């Protein structure tokens, strides 16, 4: 071996190595809610709103996923346009004049939320509750709610005349379960399982109209599907339709107490990638593991060992 190198640390480079600069995107100017905003070309209306500190509600959107425009909760009014534009995917264009709140926008958001809540059990979708309040959504306008999300009567039987997606929860393995009574078809799970993260392609949207649903191939049970149990679908599900079995069991037993849980970040004990684990602890037992969306290493994703492999610590004796 070369002794000079072997026995002494090499010198530091003269400057800190960094990513080569990319050509800066030209800036786009527009007006949002009467305020002049600037954003780099390619930015969406939602990006520009968030930069400007303007709140736009989203449901099917996630920073780490490709926008699919499924939910229409984020629509905004673009002056001169015939229809409302989804802020999550519509690019900001020079000179656009945008209103994020207007009677038309509010009515549209209210309608979307009412239609969802009239047919879907939103009892474990906490982010939707304030949203429904904000837009005074009343699912009862369309049908007796299955579980309006405003009440905790999630298991109330639907009246016979109500179209709903109510169905038994699918519990077909020990790691996670699927309750499609709670599915709003946001497609986030399909994207996380597919080309936006995991590339396993175990699930996709199947059926049409009211029969549209998320399904494994030929609707087989998970152990017969391509699923590798990374649980990255659970991580992005906004309504609790996908849930770790551990959490589901505790909820069923009435023992799930988020207010009594501590949440601490640590680093995964398994391979050398170094994924951040956010560990949820209740009564000195690990009850859930997630990963922060903003982690440069994971972007919120984990593998089966990271997400579910903590049981050895709960083991006693």
């Amino acid at each position, binding site marked *: 071996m070369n002794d000079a190198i072997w026995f*002494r*640390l090499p*010198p530091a480079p003269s400057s800190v190595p960094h990513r080569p600069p990319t050509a800066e995107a030209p800036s786009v100017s527009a007006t949002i809610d009467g305020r002049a905003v600037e954003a780099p070309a390619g930015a969406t209306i939602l990006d520009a709103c968030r930069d400007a500190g303007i709140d736009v509600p989203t449901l099917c959107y996630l920073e780490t996923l490709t926008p699919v425009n499924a939910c229409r909760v984020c629509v905004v009014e673009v002056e001169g346009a015939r229809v409302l534009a989804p802020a999550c995917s519509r690019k900001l264009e020079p000179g656009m004049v945008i209103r994020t709140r207007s009677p038309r926008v509010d009515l549209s958001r209210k309608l979307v939320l009412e239609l969802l809540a009239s047919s879907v059990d939103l009892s474990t979708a906490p982010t939707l509750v304030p949203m429904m309040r904000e837009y005074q959504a009343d699912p009862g306008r369309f049908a007796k709610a299955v579980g309006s999300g405003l009440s905790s009567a999630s298991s109330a039987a639907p009246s016979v005349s109500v179209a709903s997606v109510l169905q038994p929860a699918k519990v077909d393995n020990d790691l996670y379960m699927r309750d499609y009574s709670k599915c709003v078809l946001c497609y986030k799970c399909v994207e996380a399982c597919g080309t936006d993260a995991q590339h396993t392609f175990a699930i996709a949207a199947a059926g049409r109209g009211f029969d549209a649903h998320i399904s494994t191939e030929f609707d087989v049970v998970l152990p017969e599907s391509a699923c590798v149990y990374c649980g990255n679908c659970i991580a992005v599900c906004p309504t609790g339709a996908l849930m770790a079995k551990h959490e589901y069991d505790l909820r069923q037993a009435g023992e799930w107490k988020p207010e009594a849980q501590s949440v601490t970040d*640590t*680093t*995964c004990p398994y*391979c050398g*990638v*170094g994924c951040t684990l956010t560990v949820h602890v209740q009564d000195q037992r690990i009850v859930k593991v997630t990963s922060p969306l903003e982690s440069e290493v994971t972007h919120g994703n984990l593998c089966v060992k990271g997400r579910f492999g903590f049981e050895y610590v709960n*083991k006693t004796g």
Partner: protein
Amino acid sequence: MVFGMGGGTSSYQEIEETDCILLWGSNARETHPIFFHHLLKGLKRGARMFAIDPRRTSSAEWADVWAGLDVGTDIPLANAVGREIIAAGLVNHDFVTHATEGFDAYRASVEPWTLERAASVTGVPAAVIRQMAHEYATAKRAMLCWTLGITEHHHAVDNVLALINLALLTGHVGRWGSGINPLRGQNNVQGGGDMGALPDRLPGFQHVENDEVRQKFERVWGATIPPKRGWHLSGMFDAMERGELRAVYVIGENPIQSEADQHRAARLMGGLDFLIVQDLFITDTAELADVVFPAAAGAFESDGTVTSSERRVQRCRRTIDPPGEAREDLAIIFDLARALGHDWGQPDAEAVWNELRSLSPVHAGMSYARLDEHRGLRWPCYDESHPGEAFLHARLWERPIKGPRAPFHPVDHTEPADALSDEYPIRLTTGRRLAEYNTGVQTGAYASPTRRGETLDLSPEDAKHYGIDAGDLVRVVSRRGEVMAPAFIDPALRPGLAFMTFHFPEQVQTNQLTIDATDPRSGTAEFKATAIRIEKAPAAAATT
């Protein structure tokens, strides 16, 4: 270590922005799944990928080209790639002249490795070797990543050097998106080495045989440090054999199940005068111990840091209290020191870390506060205003070069130690599965729906040849031992190649088969190349 610091050169983000990926001896799709997410982003952006692996793994399924080489022929393949790059005039002469030394000797050493000769030795078609050479050399940015398929061989260090030679030849190191990266198999393999858990290093890769370095540590530690390097793990077993090593303190390992040639490992550990084991569970190794210290789980019940494959130092935090009498490693070690007459005060992970920062220049800037703020920092990080280096060895591109040149290391082929023969005609290689980890001490506790237990994985051709069906019990015999395992037919295997894991020692003790032929420089045994024969077990045996 050719470059003076042992670590992957690149950040994960760079594989998203590279143009050509050689994934060599690594099934990262299953063994490093979240790293593979970054790699997939690179493929989506248009990067080309070559998977070099005897098995057509789930990682190889994502590659543009699979180079299915015979086990243990990595050096002939790498040397042929090097020769082709030279012969085709694709050497980055500017970089080679400016930043390396020993090119002429390297060129002479690879000269015999023509495409045809390499094809006959490795089993990889000449056209594939040629294509790999041309694409790697001409890519604007290129990454070489490897795992234990490179390092679990008796010539592990030569394997790594053969790959590094390719990076030097093409200038694919020291730049954004170009680098050489060993993917670490455990959450703190990198950190363990960084912290001096190497026989020849003090923390921060500072050589123990460098007087100046040693004296610096001695001043702070108030103790004399032996001036000569110690033993690697395999060297320790040899020292036990010679009777020179009589007492061992094992922290968080299960060597009698994870070491190659398990019979020997158990005999030597069992024959020690004194054995301390510190672990979460009573492992088989702990069963042999004179004293067992029940330990807290590092990731969930302790405070400290670990370092990842991209050199990122990250915090581990106590999320729950350890059960019963179990305590943090640090507390146990402090108490042990006190019992030996040294009072180190109260155990405090941050204080220990700050002492390390005062001694290791590459960690100096990483305060706990900064690690929290940035979700970890990559070394080297020289001071508290330093952001950490995304990629290493940028100095090689400075004009004039800063510091010493990077040397080529000519290496040549040696066959695996456990030779195939008429009696042992099948090559057994071992590795991991996605949902499992090492000897299953941790993963055994969760209910993985994909767990199928230990199997002997065979190619469809071999299964047919031996009249073995899926699920049949098979007797697997090597020169060191034999085990029984059910057969699993895997079309990812080529004829003559079999695969087992070591995840289920309670079912099948795979490491009774493996050989402890070891590279004296790395201390890693040749888990990847065992010669076996297989026999379908008689039906009667199958019921016992």
